[in-house]
């Protein structure tokens, strides 16, 4: 096989993704920009008027911002974990979905921490966190962990992009893209020529980084769970919270990957690359995660119920009265329905697997909401003569607008990156195709 010619052919094949913008794409990007702008307007409203414009009050000091923060950060960590595993074990599936996973990892880690900043009442004092950190506080650990993880993920994503930048640079004549974009390919390719020495070096550092992101994901996500579980609050003070968060993260991570695969496959018509097999494997992983997640959820609530501690009982009363349907959806529907869909072979079709992923994602988001809000609405000390809006939380349009802007920002960045670099790693395809037949046969055997 002539590698040079194959690279050229791949660039030609993927060029429609990078060249020009269709009307649908323009409408899509335009809509996302509008939502982001609305979110920015809501942010300034909050900045100038304070948290009064949100539903957060003295009692319920955390609302949907922290829910989004946990959700996005958990998406990122699970993405890093899955991507690290795909790379470390040189799984052939990484050719098709590796880049999607890496992009989800980095983008959610960029969007997620923005939500924690929105929880801060006095953003003008943000620098105090760095000037006067308390090393004993899990919040300080979390800042360090998130910043370190962000650098690691961006670096890791960049490492996996380098060979593709080099391919795009070498075949830029085939592309009808602006000159600045070609210059960017050249700059970001770092003079990579795919020589033996360069390839060996790049593989080595990517391999080390893939292990590191797995470890960092576990450490950082455990720290995030400890922010809750190291307090004595009913519903949070649980020894299984760290592994529970990791399992929940992997569950939601796989679900988002499946949804993204479905959208990318349909939008870019990549049925040849993202095949049914990817969905089935993703679905089986999601099934295992759903079973584990269900088991952890049951254990956590069962221990709370059985202990009969007043705080926990009050919390369970709140969950089974004010939040009854949300609780049922998050912890029954959101777990059992994906399990049923994924368990039966005849339901393991692309559409059904994606539907299971959507239900799982909604369920996980509700679960996060139920972890944060009802606990804050059920304090240890009884409150007297307090206005109901101080005890009960309802998100305002300002919070929903910023939340929607976060999701839109994520999708916008994903779309823009997909317009800059092919969503399927070209270098991985070349690497796979040029591998000895024996290796390919072995890979085929595993995947079948």
């Amino acid at each position, binding site marked *: 096989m002539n590698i040079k010619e194959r690279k050229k052919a791949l660039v030609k094949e993927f060029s429609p993704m990078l060249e020009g913008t269709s009307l649908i794409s323009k409408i899509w990007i335009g809509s996302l920009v509008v939502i982001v702008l609305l979110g920015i307007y809501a942010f300034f409203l909050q900045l100038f008027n304070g948290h009064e414009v949100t539903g957060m009050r003295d009692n319920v000091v955390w609302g949907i911002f922290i829910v989004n923060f946990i959700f996005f950060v958990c998406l990122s960590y699970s993405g890093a974990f899955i991507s690290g595993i795909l790379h470390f074990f040189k799984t052939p599936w990484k050719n098709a979905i590796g880049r999607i996973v890496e992009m989800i990892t980095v983008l959610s880690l960029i969007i997620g921490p923005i939500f924690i900043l929105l929880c801060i009442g006095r953003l003008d004092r943000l620098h105090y966190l760095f000037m006067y950190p*308390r*090393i*004993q506080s899990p919040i300080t*650990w979390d800042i*360090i962990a998130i910043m*370190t993880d962000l*650098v*690691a993920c961006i*670096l890791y994503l960049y*490492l996996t992009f*380098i060979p593709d930048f080099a391919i795009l640079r070498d075949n830029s004549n085939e592309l009808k893209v602006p000159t600045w974009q070609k210059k960017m390919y050249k700059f970001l*390719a*770092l*003079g*990579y*020529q795919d*020589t033996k*020495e*360069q390839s060996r*070096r*790049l593989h*080595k*550092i990517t391999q*080390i*980084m893939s292990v*590191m992101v797995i470890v*960092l994901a576990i*450490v950082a996500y455990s720290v995030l769970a400890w922010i809750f579980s190291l307090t004595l609050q009913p519903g949070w003070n649980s020894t299984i919270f760290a592994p529970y968060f990791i399992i929940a993260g992997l569950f939601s991570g796989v679900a988002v990957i499946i949804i993204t695969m479905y959208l990318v496959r349909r939008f870019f018509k990549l049925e040849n690359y993202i095949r049914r097999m990817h969905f089935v494997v993703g679905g089986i992983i999601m099934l295992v995660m759903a079973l584990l997640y269900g088991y952890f959820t049951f254990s956590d609530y069962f221990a709370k119920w059985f202990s009969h501690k007043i705080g926990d009982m009050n919390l369970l009363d709140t969950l089974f009265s004010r939040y009854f349907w949300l609780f049922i959806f998050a912890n029954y529907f959101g777990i059992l329905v994906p399990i049923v869909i994924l368990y039966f072979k005849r339901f393991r079709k692309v559409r059904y697997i994606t539907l299971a992923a959507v239900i799982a994602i909604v369920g996980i988001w509700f679960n996060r909401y139920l972890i944060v809000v009802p606990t804050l609405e059920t304090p240890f000390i009884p409150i007297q003569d307090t206005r109901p809006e101080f005890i009960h939380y309802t998100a305002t349009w300002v919070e929903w607008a910023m939340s929607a802007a976060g999701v839109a920002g994520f999708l916008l960045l994903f779309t823009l990156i997909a317009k800059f670099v092919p969503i399927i790693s070209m270098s991985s395809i070349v690497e796979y195709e040029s591998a000895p037949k024996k290796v390919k046969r072995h890979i085929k055997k595993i995947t079948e």
Partner: protein
Amino acid sequence: MKSNNIKYTFIATIVITLFTSITMLAQKFDASNYNMMFNFKTAKQHDNTRLLEVSYIARNNEDSKDEMPVLDAEVKFYNILNEKEILIGSAKTTKDGIAKFIVPADFSYLAAADGFINITAKYVGSDVLSEESEELLFKDLQLQLELTEVEGVRMIKGKAFVLNNAGEELPVEADLYFYAGGMLTKMKIEDGIVEEGALEYEFEYSSNLPGTVDGNITFYITVEDHDEFGNVTQKQTINWGTPNPQIAESNKLWSEVAPIWMYVVLTILIVGVWANFIYTGINLFIIRKEGKLLEEKSKRR
């Protein structure tokens, strides 16, 4: 058609079941189904006041677990001697069916020649409930508790007697129980009897109970469920405790300075990770350098 009928019948059954509750069949309270329990008891307290307590509860004749306290029933307490009837006071039953009244310490009871006092609790009744009354006969027992320490020996003395009309102390026969007070309940430390003309029972206190943080212990002497005297209590507090030394555990995690292990572990972790970032950066630099060299070579050719 037949299957449709079965289907609709099934759905209708489910709907009716869901909207039906057992409480729909509940009847209005009917006293005839219930046995009314009007119980009266009294206890002389440590400050010489006397607690009069009535428990008024309706119990289902068929189901003894089904008990309903009578709420807001006014119970009147009388001191009766022959034809003379003095109203001491009255109280209304609470939601637990309890009516309590405390007779002041200086109240002069009408007593019979043999020293017995008759106190009667009465409820006049209502449209639904019939009249209730119960009387108690008891002698006014004088109980005293004395705590002394002579040359390091700690003695506890309990004295029980009744007073005659002339104010003389008359001996009684009774079991005396001695307790040390705790945070939740009392702990029995001794029991003794006063009989055959003896007025007192004395014993040495040699325990080393911790008491409160200040070393105070409250001792109690009681006569319990006596046929003539009922329940009588007396108490005294004294600094005889030997408090356990309080070791205040300082909270390491929230102290001003974090523990050393935390600095060490976090530093190793962070330095390790960032060192790898630098290592990656160096490798990328080398890749770039090699790429530049290759580019120059190809240009020269």
